[in-house]
């Protein structure tokens, strides 16, 4: 049995860089070429995207090497990740969260093939950089973000 400290460093879990930047997304701008800060907001998805957020923090992806970070407040965020299609009740908090974002900011909406809720397109959100309706997993989200960052 390895000792605790050694156990942590004897294996390299991070996988090789093979995340092609996703095409057909709007770029956020040169300012964020090196790093972006994300604030995910759940507006009523079925939980899968929340789990993908946890998965994104996994060492296999090691998102910090791409300069992608999570923040704990929308006031520190560059990109708002909208998880799912909003329920009626979440529209007001969602609008307020967008109001709290510092400028310039970008919004990425992930619908993950969801049937319930309101279509994001009906909400006329500002600076919508990408709107993915299909199912999406952690790896693709990273590709998407890299596309936005123009890496």
């Amino acid at each position, binding site marked *: 049995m390895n000792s605790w400290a050694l156990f942590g460093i004897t294996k390299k*879990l991070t996988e090789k860089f093979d995340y092609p930047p996703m095409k057909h997304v709007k770029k956020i701008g040169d300012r964020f070429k090196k790093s972006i800060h994300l604030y995910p907001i759940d507006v009523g998805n079925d939980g899968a995207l929340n*789990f993908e957020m946890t998965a994104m923090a996994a060492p*296999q992806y090691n998102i910090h090497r791409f300069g992608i970070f999570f923040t704990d407040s929308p006031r520190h965020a560059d990109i708002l990740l909208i998880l799912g299609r909003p329920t009626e009740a979440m529209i007001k908090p969602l609008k307020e969260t967008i109001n709290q974002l510092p400028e310039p900011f970008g919004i990425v909406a992930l619908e993950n093939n969801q049937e319930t809720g309101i279509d994001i397109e009906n909400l006329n959100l500002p600076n919508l950089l990408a709107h993915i309706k299909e199912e999406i997993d952690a790896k693709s989200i990273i590709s998407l973000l890299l596309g936005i960052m123009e890496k």
Partner: protein
Amino acid sequence: MRLLGIIEKPNGKQLLVQDKERFFIKEDTEKNFSNYSFLKNRDKNIGNPMKKGEGVFNFRYGPVNSGVGEAGIFNICTYGERIISANIDPSYKKRGIEEMIKGSNVKKALRLSEDICSNFAFSHSTAFLRAIENAGKLHTDTTTKRIRIMALELERIYNHLFVMARLSKGASQNVLTSHLEGLFEEALRTNRRFSGSRFLKNLNGLSIDVSRLINMDETASRIKNIKDKFTELYRHSLKSWNFIDRIYNTATLSKDKALDIGITGPSLRATGADEDLRKYEKLYKNFTPRTEKNGDALSRMQVRAAEIIDSCEIIEEQIEKIKQEKQQDNKIDLSSISGDGIGACESPSGLVVYFIELSERIIKNVYISTPSLFGFKAFCDSLEGHIFTDFSFALDSFGINFADCSR
């Protein structure tokens, strides 16, 4: 006897009741179930009322928050640091899936049941299908049952890993958290290799064709890898006093209280009750539920950790069996099924129970009893008297989420 839900029908209310492995409907005459009143309000407010007093205020958390990450409000009543009462408002996440299921056909309803809560997607679909099977008195072949068992255990593994990762993250055990998150990602990838979906969606059916599952051997080896790695991690994690101190005696739930609330799953087993629906199923060989005595966050974590290892063994065992057996040809005719049916399934966090009224392939009425509803009530009760920093340990240790609770 446990009250699982109150079913609204045109001719009054009926109670959905469990007695060991039996599930049945009772007329709404007996109101002496202690959890009746909170089940009645399950879509509005779960928990205990606010208190008043000098300096007492509502330390609201949500609906947008980064700590929990889900849309829902925690109303925490406090006079500073100490939590004197708590309740949650699940209405922000309510998507009305129950209403959408009413009136749809079986196929669409199956899809919707998976959409309630992705991390319990397979449990929900299994419970739903079992209800259909009971309603239509359909026969299910053994291989399908075995695949369901496998998928359920896969679901259990990644959910339990997730819970442990959250707990260790709350205690700033960064090395352990990274490893557990790595394992969690491994488990999700295993799910995809096994079923094509990271959350085991679109796999379940009244009959699952075994030839769809092409990566059976790979699944077995991946599961073995997860088991070995987790066993070692868990052994290390128990040695970290910083970690254990944070969850020991946190959010303690007594056995009587747990039974009163009606909570099931690892949270109940951590209080000492050995209730598990799986022990009544024949296809599980020599299944004994894992229990702990204290009923605190540590006990809940211990139960989950033991279950991860058990689940890995069950999967390996079932893969062997599936390989040996040949799938029976099972044609199912859905054309004229109607009637009532109840289906239940032991999800990673407790019982998922579906009550369904079918008529001519269309679902007329449905009631879904989810584990998170009871979990939130238990969470609110056990949080009282604790301080803010215990919040994440209390919440994460129950393995509950709003998606499951507010359907």
